[in-house]
């Protein structure tokens, strides 16, 4: 988060606000409600209180204006600059201006008044723009369905006004850091030749042209998908990706969610009602077999016959020895299968396996394991990797090697 230069703030934390005029895009009640909710976001995490007044000069004056409205910061018509606000202070200080050339809404359509008001009030209270894409104070408009202060926003406002009087200090969601070595994933899937990782409200991906990992909101591509997806896989021959959360799933083609979704997982796939959610899923392009991982079991579904294969579910250990249970996410890449598993630390059996595999006794946690490709198994640990030779049942010489040296991007 960033505090406005010079650290301006309101001395009195009990502030008044007045809506001087209303946009014709919304009913007066909807506009009042949107702005009231925006104030509540900030008062719920700080000692600030806000009282709406209907006449006279309030601390924070809110208005809908267009073009040059004589504050030396003219608006620019539709799109681009949506609104602005002034830092705490007398007169125009704290005031918020919304560009009336925009369409103001109380739903997904551009632009959601509640979302923009929550951002602008951050400026009225002394916050500048944050570089955290998950923060409300990020400069660009992103509406991911719910409007909530991130931990970054909460830390910012509390840096100015202190904690809320609320006995339990409110916390907000943190934005995943793509290089965080402790990062685990909700789901991973290939999609049209790329790999997308999912965590909370965000997706992450890299591509050969932009080595910097791209992190953004899932809602950017699929506004109607829920946050916190649990599994995802691509059926390449149908150019379809399926996302799972709880006992439902969605199917998308590119950025379009297919009609009639979400559906329950039971009838189309044949899961028993005892299955309440899927941990991870991957579909083998060449065989059309899709593996579903649920706790310590796995199912195999035939995409062509559109039915579960006989003999399933099996224990994961039976079909995928060494992977462990509770797979976080799985995807297929270049013929290899890479498992992103929750750390298998603490499961004595695996630690014994690790040491018998030839890992040094100090080895504590493996971050990812590949499938068997030409009798080789790759183990990824932090920034190094080992290659295990299934024929000789031993680690190959010359390992560990640095991942970045051999797996560019």
């Amino acid at each position, binding site marked *: 988060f960033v505090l*406005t*230069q010079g650290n301006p703030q309101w001395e009195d934390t009990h502030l008044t606000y007045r809506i001087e005029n209303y946009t014709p895009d919304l009913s007066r009640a909807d506009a009042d409600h949107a702005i009231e909710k925006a104030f509540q976001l900030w008062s719920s995490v700080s000692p600030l209180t806000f009282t709406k007044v209907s006449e006279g000069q309030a601390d924070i004056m809110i208005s809908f204006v267009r073009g040059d409205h004589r504050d030396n*910061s003219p*608006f620019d018509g539709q*799109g*681009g*600059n*949506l*609104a*602005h*606000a002034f*830092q705490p202070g007398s007169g125009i200080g704290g005031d918020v201006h919304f*560009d009336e050339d925009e369409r103001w809404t109380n739903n997904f359509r*551009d*632009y959601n008044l509640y979302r*923009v008001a929550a*951002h*602008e009030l951050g*400026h009225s209270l002394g916050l*500048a*723009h944050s*570089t955290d*894409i998950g923060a409300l104070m990020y*400069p*660009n*408009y992103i509406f991911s369905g719910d409007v909530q202060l991130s931990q970054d926003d909460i830390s910012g406002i509390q840096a100015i006004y202190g904690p809320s009087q609320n006995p339990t200090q409110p916390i907000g969601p943190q934005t995943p850091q793509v290089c965080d070595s402790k990062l685990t994933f909700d789901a991973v899937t290939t*999609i*049209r*030749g*790329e790999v997308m990782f999912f965590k909370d409200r965000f997706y992450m*991906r890299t*591509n*050969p*042209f*932009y*080595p*910097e990992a*791209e992190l*953004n909101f899932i809602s*950017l*591509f699929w506004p109607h998908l829920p946050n916190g997806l649990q599994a995802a896989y691509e059926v390449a021959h149908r150019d379809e990706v399926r996302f799972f959360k709880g006992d439902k799933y969605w199917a998308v083609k*590119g*950025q379009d969610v297919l009609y009639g979704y979400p559906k329950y997982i039971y009838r189309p796939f044949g899961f028993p009602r005892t299955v309440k959610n899927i941990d991870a899923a991957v579909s083998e392009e060449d065989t059309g077999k899709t593996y579903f991982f649920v706790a310590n079991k796995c199912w195999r579904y035939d995409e062509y016959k559109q039915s579960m294969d006989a003999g399933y579910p099996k224990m994961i250990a039976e079909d995928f020895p060494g992977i462990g249970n509770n797979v976080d996410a799985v995807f297929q890449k270049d013929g290899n299968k890479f498992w992103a598993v929750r750390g298998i630390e603490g499961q004595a059996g695996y630690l014994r396996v690790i040491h018998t595999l030839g890992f040094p006794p100090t080895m504590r946690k493996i971050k990812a394991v590949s499938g068997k490709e030409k009798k080789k198994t790759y183990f990824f640990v932090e920034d190094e990797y080992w290659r295990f030779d299934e024929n000789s049942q031993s680690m190959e010489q010359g390992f560990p090697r640095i991942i970045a040296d051999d797996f560019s991007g």
Partner: protein
Amino acid sequence: SHSFPAATTETQEQDVETVQKYLENYYNLKSDGKQVERQRNSDPVVEKLKQMQKFFGLKVTGKPDAETLNVMKQPRCGVPDMDQ
């Protein structure tokens, strides 16, 4: 690059006007009325462009590549990101 696959072509250096205006509005680039074309590769523009790319976690090149232009075209708040 919000597409599948992500935008892969380096766009021609276009929308110089967009870059100039964006940096004036949000990164305090002084507009001294000079012809935009001449300013394009001037130090202040390159410096401000690098500031913007750093702020948004983009590859800091000082050049208006596709990724940078894509961010500049997104709707946003009118308050500057730097030196308000």
